[in-house]
């Protein structure tokens, strides 16, 4: 396989892994305040307690791989999204801190504050990542030297904000289904309702975003002419979305979780197809767009990194599986819990 294509695909894999894994723990944060009692909120946090940190590493590795494989694109995107990414960082820091510190002190005000911080930070982080995806779909003003030539407000366009809302709705649904799997009793019965409500919200936003994308972004579907098999993913995406309510209704929450994970994977895939072969579309002049060819590191570096990835990824998958296996089953609060 062509090295440029390989790294584009691997970035897609890392982004998919991140969106599915950190997606459910961000989602838990988004719906966190729907739990009323202190012990319920503790259960929610501990449902993701041992896992969120490893999940976030997918984002770190995605960033590192983008830097390594496509430095020009990394430099352009990260400096273009300066303030939104700074806000994203603050949100991620607050989120980590709120989980770590919420249950360390026995005071209602203290816990309410960190609960609110956890929810707000999870929602903001998800929203901003969605906005970044929306902006990438639209293209941003990149100059000939590879530097961003717009302002902050140029990033907050309606379509990008709408994709931000889609991200929040998707993760809220994904997180609710995850929580249903990890809880039992009275709390689980109420989470059943959250699944339905977040699914309804997701479906509504999903339909709107799809309609707007098809109507207003002709570039998003141009690759389908050359990649007819990509239609298979579109069909699978629709089937996965349709299977979520079916599985919930039939009392198969794990099936619903797999379906929502597949939905997320399909959305990331379609995002990749919409961009390819660009990493960033320059809205100023298509000639200044960053492609997988002109933004890439040298063949030698890409080759070395492919060796690193081939050696490393099996380990990553192996111990990610081990950790998920060790922490399978319902949440139990113990001495080492949050």
């Amino acid at each position, binding site marked *: 396989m062509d090295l440029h294509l390989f790294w584009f695909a691997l970035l897609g894999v890392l982004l998919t892994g991140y969106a599915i894994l950190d997606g459910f723990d961000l989602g838990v944060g988004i719906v966190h305040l729907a739990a009323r009692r202190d012990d319920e909120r503790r259960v929610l946090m501990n449902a993701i*307690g*041992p896992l969120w*940190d*490893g999940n*976030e*590493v997918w984002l*770190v*590795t995605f*960033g*590192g*791989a983008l*830097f*390594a*494989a*496509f*430095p*020009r694109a*990394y*430099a352009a995107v*990260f*400096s*273009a*999204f*300066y*303030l939104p990414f*700074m806000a994203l*960082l*603050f949100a*991620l*820091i607050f989120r*980590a*801190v709120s989980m*770590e*510190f919420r249950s360390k*002190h026995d005071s209602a005000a203290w816990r309410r504050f960190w609960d609110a911080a956890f929810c707000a930070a999870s929602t903001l982080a998800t929203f901003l990542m969605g906005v970044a995806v929306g902006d990438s779909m639209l293209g941003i003003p990149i100059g000939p*030297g590879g*530097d961003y*030539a717009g302002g902050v407000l140029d990033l907050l366009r309606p379509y990008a904000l709408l994709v931000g809302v889609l991200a929040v709705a998707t993760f809220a649904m994904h997180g609710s289904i995850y929580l249903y799997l990890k809880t039992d009793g009275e709390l689980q019965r109420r989470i059943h309702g959250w699944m339905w409500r977040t699914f309804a919200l997701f479906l509504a936003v999903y339909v709107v975003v799809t309609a707007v994308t098809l109507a207003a972004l002709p570039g998003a579907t141009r690759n389908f002419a050359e990649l007819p098999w990509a239609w298979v993913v579109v069909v699978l995406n629709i089937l996965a979305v349709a299977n979520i309510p079916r599985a919930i209704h039939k009392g198969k929450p794990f099936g619903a979780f797999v379906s929502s994970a597949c939905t997320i994977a399909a959305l990331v895939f379609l995002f990749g197809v919409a961009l390819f072969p660009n990493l960033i579309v320059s809205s100023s002049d298509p000639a200044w767009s960053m492609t997988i060819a002109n933004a890439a*590191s*040298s063949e*030698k*570096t890409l080759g*070395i*990194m492919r060796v*690193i*990835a081939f050696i*490393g*990824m099996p*380990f*990553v998958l192996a*111990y*990610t599986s*081990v*950790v998920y296996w*060790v*922490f399978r089953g319902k949440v139990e609060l*113990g*001495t*080492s*819990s949050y």
Partner: protein
Amino acid sequence: MDAVLLARLQFAFTLMFHYLFPPITIGLGLLLVVMEGLYLKTRDIQYEAMARFWTRIFAVNFAMGVATGIVMEFQFGTNWATYSRFVGDVFGSALAAEGIFAFFLESGFLAVLVFGWDRVSPGMHFFATVMVALGSIFSALWIVVANSWQQTPAGFHIVGTGAAARAEITDFWAMVFNPSSMERLVHVLLGAFIVGAFVVLSVSAFYLLRGRHLEFARRSVTIALVVAAAASAAEVISGDSQARTLAATQPAKLAAFEGLYTTAPGGTRLTVVGFPDTAAQRVRGEVAIPGLLSFLVYGDWNKPVAGLDRVARADWPPVPLPFQAYHAMVGLGFLFAALMAVALVKRWRGTLFQARWLLWTLVFAVLGPIAANQLGWVAAEVGRQPWVVYGLLRTADATSKSVPAGQVLASLVMFGVIYALLLAVYVFVLNAKILHGPDEAAAPPAATTGEGLLAAAGSLTGHGGESLTSGGEPGGHAERG
């Protein structure tokens, strides 16, 4: 203020804040392996209590390290876009290796280490502990390799010119084993081991002074003391070998460290204290040992060491800051080595746990290694100026052109606020964990434990049995806890 200065301030501030935590993580990781290894070997529940307690301290530091570490990765792109384009090809493989090998290893097994005590077998748990410790060392490896490449670039060639110039890798292993990387890695790791051991010493000395968790504290002190003493002694040797490499690879930095404005014929003095004055090109109030620097660098008392007069004026680093940071680091380093020597002798004689002045010194001494780690990096990074990649890319040319100074100022202020809050919460939580102390609930009935501990203490310290009873330990911690 201009955008470059703000970007530098922000990078320095966020990095120094971040770097409060990784040395503790790396150092404590090693001690956790030792403690849990001893538990597996002896099945002595005291070692298990130690491993469990220090894991909780470890986890708080790890969480802080992760939260503040993502900031660093983002900042290369957000604030240093030109630098990222320049180094991406070279730096990239190191960073990718760090992500894939180190971060996943650390974070994956951290879950088992912290939350898995009752879910996996002791053997599997120990394996997870070893993997987390290894992961933290791996991340240090790749980060130090990348940073060392900025100090002593190797295994690359330059493609393109002007603003579009970038370094491309030609030899991966030459990049990894660039002239300074392995020496600096050893120095960084030893520095981290010292910090981790001093953290354990500090908390344990506090328990001893308060008469709480005595057996736990004594054993923790003993293990940490051995690690700290060995690492402190090795760090002095490591520092000495680095000076020789520095003279060959970054003479301007060495000259700044030593306040050498001019190259005098004959042996070069080693300045112990002084105040460099760049305008006057001399060091004021200097106390120096003649010829010693020549001896340390070249093994020859009479061979001159090059001063800044051999470097173009535009390529001079600022002198006073690296000079003072370097001297303070070295001074602190000798101080720990001496402190550890004294503590070790007293421990050997069995009088350490009664020497309250020394225990109080240990409680506060932890600030020293933390400061020394920070000072070492200040010296290394400021001493590299005006270059971000030595001899190839100037710091002033390396920032993001599209980010206005106002935005950097805004984010810097936000970091200031958020990190102040973060630090307050960190201290609060750490304090609560230390005051709570190790969990002794998991221990078997008191009668058998007490005897076992007394016997163990007696055999371990010689004088331990005495103070155990005179200190009124049995049940003492339960009242306070």
